[in-house]
């Protein structure tokens, strides 16, 4: 095993996928929990989810530009179709998508972290 002494190691920090995913999942669970979908609260929930996720992501990756989107959809018989495409530096940038559900609703959170260095 060799030791790399390089300034690049500090500047080109890569996206930490599993840590980010776990944090976001915990945030969604905390905010939505066993709540039933209702129109009065849903906008506040989506707002809280993106704000808290954004804060947490900044603590982990403060040299990255970050985009968070959150969607809450009440459960019905219909399908939801979602697709993403990214033009980025695949060596350092990354994304995670969390699908969460309880009895009454789905929540989908996408988080994208893009290095400002590349």
């Amino acid at each position, binding site marked *: 095993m060799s030791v790399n002494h390089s300034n690049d190691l500090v500047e080109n920090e890569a996206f930490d996928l599993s840590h980010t995913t776990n944090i976001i999942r915990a945030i969604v669970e905390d905010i939505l929990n066993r709540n039933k979908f209702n129109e009065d609260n849903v906008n506040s929930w989506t707002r809280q989810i993106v704000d808290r996720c954004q804060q947490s992501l900044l603590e982990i990756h403060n040299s990255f530009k970050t*985009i968070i989107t959150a969607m809450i959809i009440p459960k019905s018989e219909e399908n939801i179709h*979602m697709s993403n495409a*990214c*033009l980025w530096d695949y060596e350092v940038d990354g994304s995670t998508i969390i699908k969460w559900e309880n009895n009454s609703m789905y929540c989908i959170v996408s988080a994208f972290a*893009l290095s400002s260095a590349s």
Partner: protein
Amino acid sequence: MTSEEYSVFSVDEVSNIIKEVIERLIGNHAYQHDQVTRWTADIVDQILTELTNLGKRFKYIVQAVIVPKNGTGLHAASSCYWNDITDGSCTLRWENKYVHAVVSVFGLSI
């Protein structure tokens, strides 16, 4: 800094691209369960291609959601941590008789 040295995200330019691609791919087509997955993927791919052709020094995220119209809603929020001067986003809500589509483009300058 002159405009040749950095690019600024143009909401109008991107909005037109999104509109054109959706119209071209979905238009007034009826909802077909087996087509929608393909539509969603094609929309983001084609928008990304056209954005790349603009030749600006940007990283892009394109996101598309399509839900059939049946009364249930879709609630969304987003948050961006970026460079206020150069970076930007454009979200288009589009519908025909059969589906709602929400397409977002985020552009981050390099």
